[in-house]
């Protein structure tokens, strides 16, 4: 007790360094403070994105104009997409929880390059401001969709080049974070923590880091090509100059498809921590989960063409992209089987993070299985560019990453803030959110199969009923979100003090006080032969 008390006095939230107030945070090189900087900045962007999404759903409540005109609607879905993809889900889990947890989970005092880590956050913020500025200045907000497809995006007079530059700066932040994590995982594991004893969340960060490092530079290549076309009139993408608009789609998806795996891998990692903890049981198939993580990271590079089955690619290319897409589905299935098997004969402690974890598995299965419809050639031709696709990727990106995020924040909250949240409110929030989520996105599967194209400001009467249900769902879901956030924000300040290890977990972050001291460990831990992240007795 004495020791714990002493450590608490210098916990990372209260620690007083060279600077005071805000500067003590934005100039801090402590990985935990940087993790929280990301948490606050990413959540702020997330709330803006949610409001835009809510406005879109309100507009679609009835055919014809409901609250906004077509131009505003088109700008709304563009900005919603850009914010949610590039500023929320891509950095999302690795930047927030990766930063906070990676060093503690491997028994290190910080990441390998703490200053570079702070620079990554600054680059993220600069990227955010660049993109937002590109969106707000110029001839109004862009109305191109977050994909910026050529040649429409070149014709609208919006700030395409600054927006891609901003995306590149955001990407650069991502590259540096990936590099930092790779070096940290390779070089800074504590004695005895071999590769086969790494927590699975760390393994997914490792796979993610490689994708960040290798796929993100494609954004830079695209930027150079757009600049050459804009400034020197070299026809690359614009058919008016002799360019090829389909080339743009290839480059866009060569980055943006692996980016989907940047989003989902750490989400899977968080779930792989939560399920064993609340089952009080060794994870089932540890090595199989690692192998599937690395398989996803690798095959994920090779499937971008499934976004383009109707774009005018050659038949042979479509054939191979479809085949590889089916193959990349298998590692995800393996993970689901292993997670569910982990619960078998466990001593399951049903807590808020487990509700989120189990519902993650459910929505992730729906997202993944609907992806099979889109990976298959015949069915994709029918539902490509319809509401079905919108439903699918919201199930994966919001259902997958979002549910894993909420699972993770409810799991690690006591560690991050040293306080507990109100369980009853947290569970109520989860239930309302879950019901709202299903009501919001499930009707879109139906609408897409019935033939309603996506990015539609207005629609024919035959699509009305599905849209009403979807809009009602958005209101329910946001109600749940408000409950969750109010509970967490209130509890971060006023919750009951949390124990060091409230969930009886085995990973290293639960062996340090809550919240952790500045440098995590007084003495670097040593992992004994029969210790391990999931060695429940």
């Amino acid at each position, binding site marked *: 007790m004495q020791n714990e008390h002493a450590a608490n006095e210098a916990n990372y939230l209260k620690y007083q360094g060279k600077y005071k107030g805000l500067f003590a945070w934005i100039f801090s090189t402590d990985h935990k403070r940087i993790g929280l900087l990301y948490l606050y900045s990413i959540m702020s962007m997330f709330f803006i994105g949610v409001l835009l999404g809510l406005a879109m759903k309100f507009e679609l409540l009835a055919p014809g104009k409901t609250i906004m005109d077509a131009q505003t609607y088109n700008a709304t879905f563009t900005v919603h997409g850009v914010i949610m993809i590039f500023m929320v889900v891509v950095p999302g889990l690795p930047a927030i929880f990766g930063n906070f947890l990676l060093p503690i989970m491997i028994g290190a005092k910080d990441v390998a390059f703490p200053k570079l880590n702070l620079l990554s956050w600054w680059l993220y913020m600069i990227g955010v401001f660049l993109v937002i500025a590109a969106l707000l200045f110029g001839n109004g907000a862009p109305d191109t969709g977050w994909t910026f497809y050529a040649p429409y995006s070149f014709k609208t007079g919006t700030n395409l080049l600054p927006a891609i530059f901003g995306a590149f700066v955001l990407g650069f932040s991502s590259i540096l974070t990936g590099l930092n994590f790779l070096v940290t995982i390779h070089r800074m594991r504590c004695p005895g923590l071999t590769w086969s004893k790494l927590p699975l969340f760390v393994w997914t960060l490792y796979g993610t880091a490689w994708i960040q490092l290798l796929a993100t530079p494609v954004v830079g290549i695209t930027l150079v090509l757009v600049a050459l076309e804009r400034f020197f009139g070299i026809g690359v993408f614009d058919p008016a100059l002799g360019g090829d608009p389909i080339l743009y789609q290839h480059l866009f998806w060569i980055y943006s498809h692996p980016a989907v795996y940047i989003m989902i891998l750490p989400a899977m990692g968080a779930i792989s921590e939560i399920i064993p903890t609340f089952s009080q049981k060794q994870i089932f198939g540890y090595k199989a989960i690692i192998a599937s993580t690395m398989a996803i990271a690798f095959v994920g590079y090779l499937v971008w063409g499934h976004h383009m089955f109707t774009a005018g690619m050659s038949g042979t290319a479509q054939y191979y992209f479809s085949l590889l897409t089916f193959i990349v589905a298998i590692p995800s299935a393996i993970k689901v089987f292993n997670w569910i098997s982990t619960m078998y004969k466990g001593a*399951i402690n049903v807590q808020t993070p487990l509700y989120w974890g189990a519902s993650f598995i459910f929505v992730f299965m729906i997202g993944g299985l609907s992806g099979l419809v889109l990976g298959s050639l015949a069915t994709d*031709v029918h539902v490509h560019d319809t509401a079905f696709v919108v439903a699918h990727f919201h199930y994966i990106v919001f259902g997958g990453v979002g549910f894993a995020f909420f699972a993770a924040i409810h799991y690690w909250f006591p560690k991050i803030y040293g306080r507990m949240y109100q369980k009853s409110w947290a569970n109520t929030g989860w239930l309302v959110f879950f019901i709202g989520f299903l009501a919001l996105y499930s009707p879109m599967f*139906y609408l897409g199969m019935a033939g309603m194209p996506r990015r539609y400001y207005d629609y024919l009467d035959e699509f009305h009923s599905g849209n009403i249900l979807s809009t009602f769902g958005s209101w329910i879901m946001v109600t749940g979100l408000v409950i969750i956030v109010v509970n967490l924000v209130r509890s971060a300040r006023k919750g009951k003090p949390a124990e060091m290890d409230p969930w009886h977990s085995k990973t290293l972050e639960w062996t340090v006080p809550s919240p952790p001291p500045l440098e995590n460990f007084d003495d670097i831990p040593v992992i004994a032969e029969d210790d391990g992240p999931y060695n429940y007795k």
Partner: protein
Amino acid sequence: MYSPEVTRASNFVQGVDTAFLVILGVSFFFLISLTVVMIYFIYKYNRKRHPVATQIHGSTKLEIIWTVVPFLLTMVMFYYGWAGWKPMKNAPKDAMEVTVYGRMWNFSFEYENGRRTDTLFLPKDQPVKLNLKALDVLHSLYIPAFRVKQDMVPGLEDNSMWFEPQKVGNYDLFCAEYCGLQHSYMYSTVKVMEAEAFNDWITDTTQVVLSAEMDTPANTGKRIMQNIGCFACHSIDGSKLVGPSYKGIWGAEHTVVTGRETRQVIVDEEYIKRSIYDPNADVVDGYMKGLMVSYEGQLSDDDIDNIIEYLKTLK
């Protein structure tokens, strides 16, 4: 979607819907059974009922089973997806050719005899090959009832799609690739007719641009206006675009510039007709001259009457 009247509307429906059934069947089976098992585990092995966990590290046998079985199932799904899609790539040689022009924000269809329409008229049981030309940006031609879709790419030669309509009826035709402001209004109708009716129609040269008749004159007028692209520049909700809004236009008093003079006019049939055939004669005050071109020769007097009926409904 799978309502009986559109089933088998084209030759591809069966192949595509079989793939849907196979994939969705397997998917629902796994979704439901895995969810039930998971909920059962959470209940059965709740620590109240099962306080001590049994530590199990894994099972190589199970890992192999749940790698191989999904692999085989996905290959089956891949096969059905491929089998339903393969025939879409090879148009028969005797297919009737129609050239489709996509522009912001309407489709037009040109037949081999030079006839142009805003609605796709087709004979039943005749393979048709659509040659796709995009005049400005990407569009995508999508006929849900036929299960076909192909992007229209500016600058891309030899871009086509084909199908064989197999049921008489009217079907929705959408633009599925986002193309700007009025993307959601870029739709048309496929009208599939018996072969004789189609032959009578294609040889009838009394009309220049043909629109499918709708239930009321006002709706026909709306369709014509969508198809020739009026709403790109004129809103129906009062918002200001390149041209003045149609909202409340009928019978309203407009201040227009005629030559150098500014005068007041009441919007009536004669004024609307003049605005369509000679748009720069009277320009509403505050708008630019020379942006709109005449539609003379593209619209019949009946078309104008229908348009007027529609404008009357925009109160």
